[in-house]
């Protein structure tokens, strides 16, 4: 062992200064030969004879020199370069083969590294908080285990007590989502912001890029005096103005103009505020525009309107934290009825942030890996066949004394070169794929805007290339390693044929590819069927010819009514506009207003968690007509249903079914904010619609007249006669003519909103379909190759068969049978694989089971059909074998 090590060290040393050592050895040899010659001359030899005698006695100097060099140093490195040079020469000798193999690998590597880069950018990049793994969101659940109709926060009194008493936490802070406008004379700009309690910045470990963070004097009741703004908003709205610190800004609905005291570092995004998730402008994945200091109001310490985040102490498990909080909460609930019925759960912030991304990206990574495996299969088959063509060469090399390891290294270095070539092309593909993803998947994958196609893609691509090299090169290399040169040299058969063993191996590879492709196809098929089902589902409202935009009057409450009435009048009068309405709660925006209410005939809630909470929406009179939502009972809203008239509401069928199963809801009453408040009269009932989500059954809904509900931010909805996009400019001009400071944002057709609500599914479907097309093409090429090789290799056998009387059709049937067995085997294995794998798609499917038999049958039949087409050409060639060949 030690002597082995000593020799290795001196050999490594020998790697350097090779040239010097060589010439020293030459010098030594020469001296020796001269001394020997002189000695022979002294013994009386002729000088010429003496020289040759000396050489004889010394032995073969060249061989010796070679051996000397070999034992002096490690030959691995010089040889690797030699192998690579040789491999490069061989590859450039057959450019067609090399290009096909490299392109094949490029497709697999490109697909996989593109998805990897998404994962790296979206899932593996931590949020810019200090030690994010310690951060825990603390949402509430019902203690009786039932689902809540709408999410509920925590009362300030509760979390402030936790912050004081919970020993497993370093601290606990409250926060909320807030929405406002930066008032500007040329159209105001919306801001999503966070209201945060005193400890928030310190607890999260957030830093400022400019200015400073809040200090305790910024917190207090009354007007907000100071704010922070987010880095991205600073760039967007203020052009990165360094002088911003100390300036005041005008914000809608605020009585005072606060001072900007700092700008946070870039990339800070929201923490989820489930209670606000139904607001029209809520986007948890956006970067925070505005930070507002918030101190719990002593007058409303018991209202459950805070979201809570906590940081665990080092080494404390979430379970322990949760137990401690649950105990504290139970004590609070027994002391005060207002806190009864809810308990806290701990969710890791990073898990919560990555939930949507993981749901879509992990299945896609799986699909991309399948494509890579299929591509590796093809490359391996190509290399194997090429190895067969060069068997003679290998045999001669072995016979001439090339070591097996040397041969193995040479074969592997060729596949390595191919993979590097494929990897480079693949990285190119991946970079453009990532760019395409950013365009088409903006609504499907969260936080995609922060992703850049940079070194990550390159790293992943080259890493995968090395993996592919060994994967695709292993079989051919091992075959070369075990080659018996005697057999090959004796056999000297025609080039490019394969023995039964190789053909079996290749069939196995093709079968495996078929199985993997089938799994991909099934995934794509299931998603396509889902999209068809979603398209067929009756939504209950129109989506065509409808334009929407968020419109907000930012000046004053007194101005609110006149602005909206005037705006509606002007927009409705535009040519090309059929109806115009304002609505809070446009379908598929996820937008509504969860409110607790009492309903006539329902018992008063025994405890807080039994309160009925239903989504409210608010609309102007023409809305139902505009959306095509039919009124089935009672009356529509009228423009006289305003703040001077008695309060009224319209409900949907689902509401009636749940709360008045044996009668009408029209004429009944409900109460918002307690039975001691004036009742709201139900005056109409409309048909059900899938307003929240196309894949969810309609839920009970309550609509209020907008003139009574006074919603702040809302959509303007416009029904047009032709393409809605043609009226955008006119509508905006009409709105600005009423008030130039009005904020007009998010201009979208309802179709667009619909597509965005399905974006994750659409993206998964598009990508899986793309992957399975690529996979199918590669596999069909593979099947074609295997059957063609089989025909070439069995030529002599086929000729003999036809010479002894087999008909052309018999021979065709023989080869066809080989193809069918291959495809059928692969398809069966693929179905088994798909049954297992398709489960990961479950959350994307709608009215389709992961083991949907229709999809499986259609996909399998389709693939068998196409697969047999791939066999067609070789089968025809087999039929044409000339029986005379048998005799030659």
């Amino acid at each position, binding site marked *: 062992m030690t002597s082995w090590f000593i020799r290795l060290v001196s050999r490594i040393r020998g790697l350097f200064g090779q040239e010097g050592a060589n010439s020293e050895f030459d010098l030594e040899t020469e*001296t020796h030969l001269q*001394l*020997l010659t002189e000695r022979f001359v002294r013994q009386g030899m002729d000088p010429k004879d003496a020289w040759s005698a000396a050489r004889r006695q*010394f032995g073969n100097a060249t061989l010796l020199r070679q051996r000397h060099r070999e034992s002096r140093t490690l030959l691995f490195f010089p040889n690797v370069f030699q192998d690579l040079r040789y491999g490069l020469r061989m590859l450039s000798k057959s450019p067609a083969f090399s290009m096909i193999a490299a392109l094949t690998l490029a497709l697999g590597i490109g697909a996989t590294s593109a998805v990897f880069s998404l994962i790296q950018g979206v899932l593996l990049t931590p949020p810019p908080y200090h030690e994010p793994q310690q951060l825990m969101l603390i949402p509430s659940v019902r203690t009786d285990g039932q689902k809540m109709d709408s999410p509920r926060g925590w009362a300030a009194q509760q979390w402030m007590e936790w912050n004081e008493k919970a020993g497993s936490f370093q601290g606990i802070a409250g926060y909320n989502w807030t929405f406002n406008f930066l008032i500007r004379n040329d159209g105001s700009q919306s801001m999503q912001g966070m209201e945060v309690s005193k400890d928030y910045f310190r607890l999260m470990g957030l830093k400022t890029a400019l200015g400073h963070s809040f200090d305790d004097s910024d917190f207090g009741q009354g007007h907000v005096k100071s704010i922070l703004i987010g880095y991205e908003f600073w760039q967007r709205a203020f052009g990165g103005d360094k002088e911003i610190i100390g300036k005041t800004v005008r914000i809608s609905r605020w009585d005072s103009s606060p001072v900007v005291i700092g700008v946070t570092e870039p990339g800070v995004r929201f923490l989820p505020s489930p209670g606000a998730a139904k607001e029209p402008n809520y986007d948890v994945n956006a970067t925070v525009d505005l930070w507002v200091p918030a101190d719990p109001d002593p007058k409303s310490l018991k209202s459950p309107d805070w979201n809570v985040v906590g940081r665990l102490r080092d080494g404390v498990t979430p379970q322990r934290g949760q137990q401690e909080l649950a105990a504290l909460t139970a004590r609070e609930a027994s002391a005060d009825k207002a806190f009864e019925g809810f308990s806290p759960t701990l969710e890791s912030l990073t898990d919560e942030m990555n939930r949507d991304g993981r749901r879509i990206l992990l299945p896609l990574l799986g699909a991309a890996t399948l494509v890579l495996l299929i591509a590796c299969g093809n490359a391996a088959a190509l290399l194997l066949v090429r190895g067969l063509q060069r068997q003679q060469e290998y045999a001669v090399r072995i016979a001439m004394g090339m070591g097996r390891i040397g041969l193995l290294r040479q074969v592997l270095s060729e596949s390595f070169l191919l993979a590097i070539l494929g990897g480079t092309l693949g990285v190119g593909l991946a970079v453009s794929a990532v760019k395409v993803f950013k365009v088409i998947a903006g609504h499907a994958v969260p936080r995609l805007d922060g992703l850049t196609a940079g070194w990550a893609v390159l790293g992943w691509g080259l890493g995968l290339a090395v993996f592919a090299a060994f994967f695709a090169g292993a079989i051919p290399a091992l075959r070369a390693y075990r080659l018996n040169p005697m057999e090959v040299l004796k056999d000297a058969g025609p080039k490019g044929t394969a023995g039964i063993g190789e053909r079996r191996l290749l069939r196995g590879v093709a079968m495996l590819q078929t199985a993997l492709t089938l799994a991909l196809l099934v995934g794509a098929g299931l998603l396509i069927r889902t999209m068809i089902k979603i398209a067929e589902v009756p939504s209950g409202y129109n989506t065509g010819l409808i334009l929407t935009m968020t419109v907000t009057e930012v000046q004053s409450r007194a101005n609110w009514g006149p602005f909206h009435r005037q705006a509606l009048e002007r927009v409705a009068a535009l040519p090309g506009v059929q109806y115009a309405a304002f609505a809070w709660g446009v379908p598929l925006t996820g937008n509504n207003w969860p409110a607790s209410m009492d309903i006539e005939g329902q018992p008063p809630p025994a405890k807080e968690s039994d309160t009925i909470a239903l989504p409210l929406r608010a609309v102007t009179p023409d809305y139902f007509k505009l959306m095509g939502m039919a009124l089935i009972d009672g009356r529509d809203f009228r423009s006289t249903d305003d703040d001077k008239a008695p309060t009224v509401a319209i409900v949907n069928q689902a509401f009636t079914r749940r709360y008045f199963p044996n009668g009408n809801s029209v004429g009944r009453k409900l109460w918002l904010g307690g039975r001691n408040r004036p009742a709201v009269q139900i005056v109409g009932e409309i048909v059900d619609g899938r307003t929240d989500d196309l894949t969810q059954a309609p839920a009970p809904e309550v609509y209020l007249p907008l003139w009574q509900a006074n919603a702040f931010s809302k959509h303007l909805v416009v029904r047009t006669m032709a393409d809605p996009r043609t009226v955008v400019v006119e509508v905006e001009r009409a709105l600005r003519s009423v008030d130039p400071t009005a904020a007009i944002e998010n201009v979208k057709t309802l179709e667009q909103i619909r597509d965005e609500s399905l974006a994750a599914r659409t993206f998964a479907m598009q990508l899986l379909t793309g992957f399975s097309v690529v996979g199918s093409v590669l596999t069909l090429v593979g099947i074609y190759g295997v059957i063609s090789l089989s025909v070439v290799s069995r030529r002599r056998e086929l000729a003999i068969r036809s010479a002894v009387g087999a008909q052309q059709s018999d021979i065709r049937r023989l080869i066809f049978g080989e193809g069918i067995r291959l495809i059928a085997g692969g398809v069966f294995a693929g179905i088994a694989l798909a049954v297992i794998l398709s489960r990961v798609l479950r959350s994307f499917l709608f009215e389709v089971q992961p083991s949907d038999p229709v999809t499986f049958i259609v996909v399998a039949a389709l693939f068998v059909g196409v697969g047999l087409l791939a066999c067609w050409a070789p089968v025809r060639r087999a039929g044409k074998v000339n029986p005379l060949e048998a005799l030659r």
Partner: protein
Amino acid sequence: MSADKSEVLQGTLIIMILKTLHALGPLHGFGIARRIEQVSENVLTLNEGTVYTSLLRLQQQGWIESAWGVSENNRRARFYSITRQGRKQLTVETENWERISNVIGRVLRLEVQK
């Protein structure tokens, strides 16, 4: 087959070189070849080049070391000398050799008796 032969030869050559350097002090390759020739009394024919292969090995093992010097007729030559480790190794190798040749001798005598 030829590999086996060279192995045995190499093994013995190494002992001979070590012993020579031990007995005569620093020598160059030519000198070592001459000494072996002289001692073997022309019974052993040696490809003198192989001496250098063995010298390299011995050097890699650290049993001998070398330095450039001037030979008796003013030629540049590399002089090899045995190290302390090499002396130890020589004792080990000598014992080994004697044990093996004893055994082989006994085996051969057995054959003669039969």
